[in-house]
């Protein structure tokens, strides 16, 4: 029994590593059992899993909703004007080549 416990018992570093793997979908069955066993008894690793999942979901949410852009995340008019100039120059170059 003691030996079985030793095999089953991961430390927190190993458990959070498997949590990371599971979040990306590539965990083996035995890894999953060990991870779940650890999570059952460790509230810190349970919190790690919950909070990491939450952050990933919010990153995806931000990627999908451009309106979640930040106040400082704005293209300034002066930068746009410069972009326009460069674009025009490229267009001119292109038409001269043709």
């Amino acid at each position, binding site marked *: 029994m003691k030996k079985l416990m030793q095999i089953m018992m991961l*430390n*927190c*570093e*190993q458990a*959070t*590593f498997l949590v*990371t*793997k599971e*979040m*990306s979908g*590539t965990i083996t069955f035995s890894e999953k059992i060990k991870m779940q066993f650890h999570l059952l008894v460790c509230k*810190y*690793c349970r*919190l*790690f899993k*919950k*909070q*990491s*999942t*939450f*952050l*990933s*979901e*919010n*990153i*995806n*949410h*931000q*990627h999908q909703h*451009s309106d*979640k*852009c*930040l*106040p*400082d*995340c*704005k*293209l300034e008019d002066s*930068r*746009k004007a410069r*972009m*326009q100039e*460069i*674009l*025009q120059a*490229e*267009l001119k170059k*292109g038409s001269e080549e043709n």
Partner: protein
Amino acid sequence: MANLSTHNSQHTKSEPSQWVELYSDYLFVYAFARVHKKEVAEDLVQDTFVSAIKAKDSFQQKSTERTWLTSILKNKIIDYYKKKSTQSEISIGADEDSENPNTFFETEGSRQGMWQVDARPGFWDTDYKTPVEKIEFYTILNQCLENLPEQWAAVFTLKNMEDFDAQEICKELNISSSNYWVIMHRSKLQLRDCMSKNWFIEK
């Protein structure tokens, strides 16, 4: 009427000289959410337009012009991270990483591998089921992502970008799969810790 429906099913094509006006804001936001640095995002958008001019004959109107430009930008973002990843000389060995030491888990004694006391995850006053709508949250999130070592940010962002799996990322960034998992693990630990300290302020 028949003419109208044909017209609607085709995607319109604008003049390149209108692109900045039509698409620069959208593309900038897309890039910023993935590179977390304003100047880099600006340059990537500009490069996208320049490449698009050269490739504009390849646009086949199967998709919208915006989708087409976004796919060019996406490749620019991948290239940016590829370059960063090969330039960065940070060692990513599991334990002997002096620049990014293991500060989350005990490294010796009977508690080896257990959370260090001040690194233990604590309570977050949030509803885990719904995404945060506060803009300030995303400001902090971006700062925390920006704080990741460059190679970690590369792996982490590419993973979060659509259509990428672990194998492809390893190939693109030329890293081994064991290093990939070490980086993902460390990135998640650091990001969670950073958000805890700067947004949730653990109780």
